[in-house]
């Protein structure tokens, strides 16, 4: 069971790494914000899977912190995105 969960964590990690291409290449700021948001959620999924796989509940606290602050960073990304003169 633990190995399968670790394999699942690896798969999510590889998916998220692939998602990075959108950050690196994304033409617009919106694309980059989306990719960062997906990376945040992917990171949370990896942490949660590792917490179950290696039975270390501390990783759940790390995932909790990440979940709390990924939203915060994403909002900051959107608020500070270039070309936002109209929103301010």
């Amino acid at each position, binding site marked *: 069971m633990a190995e399968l969960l670790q394999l699942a964590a690896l798969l999510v990690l590889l998916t998220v790494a692939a998602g990075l291409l959108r950050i690196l290449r994304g033409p617009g700021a919106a694309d980059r914000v989306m990719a*960062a948001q997906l990376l945040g959620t992917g990171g949370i999924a990896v942490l949660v899977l590792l917490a179950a796989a290696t039975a270390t509940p501390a990783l759940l606290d790390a995932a909790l*912190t990440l979940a*709390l602050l990924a939203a915060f*960073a994403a909002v900051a990304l959107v*608020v500070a995105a270039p070309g936002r003169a109209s929103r301010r």
Partner: protein
Amino acid sequence: MTGLLADLAIGAAILALAAGMVAARSAFTATAFFIAYGLLLGLAWVRLGAVDIALTEAAIGAGLSGVLLLTAAARLAARPVATERAPGPLLTALIALCCAAVAVAIGAAILSLPEPTPSLAAEVAANLPATALGNPVAGVLMSYRALDTLLESAVVVLAVVGVWSLTPPGGWGGFPGPFHLRVESGPLALLARLLPPIGIVIALHILWVGKDAPGGKFQAAAILAAMWLLAWMAGLATPPRIASRRLRFAVSAGAGLFLAIGVAGALAEGAFLAYPAGWTKALVLAVEFALTASIAVALALLVMGPPEEEDRA
């Protein structure tokens, strides 16, 4: 096997983001890379068996640093700073060569580390029960290297003083942070109303659990600071003026209490920062809570920045 693949994936992603950051054209792009880099670095710390640092990196690296740099990038886009010319291709290549040499030298040092690695883990394990703390990193932070933690809380207070000293002439004593940044937009206001209560409960949980498991004051302080910043960014909370005594006391209270306990320890136990026998747990808790509150206020004020000119509102 899956561990190695995970490390390779995390390492490659971090390197790609770092290279992308250095080669980025716009500051916003580089900052978006930096936030992604912070998140991945948190995973790297988990793989390195340092969950405490992963928590700190996620809270400070991905959260607070990201917001700080993003708001700075947005405001610098409006008023760019005169930058000198970029070095020519030849010079850039030379710089790249030297930096590569530095990296190779450090890499060589890593590969030739002594085999029986000198480690203090055994000593920490032996003396941990005396600190009444289960988390070894917290034990080191609060008793063996308590001086580091004291100096660090002093550094945070000094950073606030430094940032406030950058107030333009007309703005002294005003509200910290720029005026126009606050955005009354629907979704942000929703988040700013829902997230802080949850964040405060989580921060207290992480602070409390930090005694015996990864967690602790710096991570809790960073989360509390992020929650206050969120409310401030959405225009729901206006911080007190920097001239207010209460705010200044809040920023310096943690370091002050820690220093007082240190001096009291010197008088009572003969050694600076020594905790009297039966009091360790109580004193450590008192300092942890006071430091968390002070550092949370200080970190938030650091990200907000100095007050602006009154007339430019």
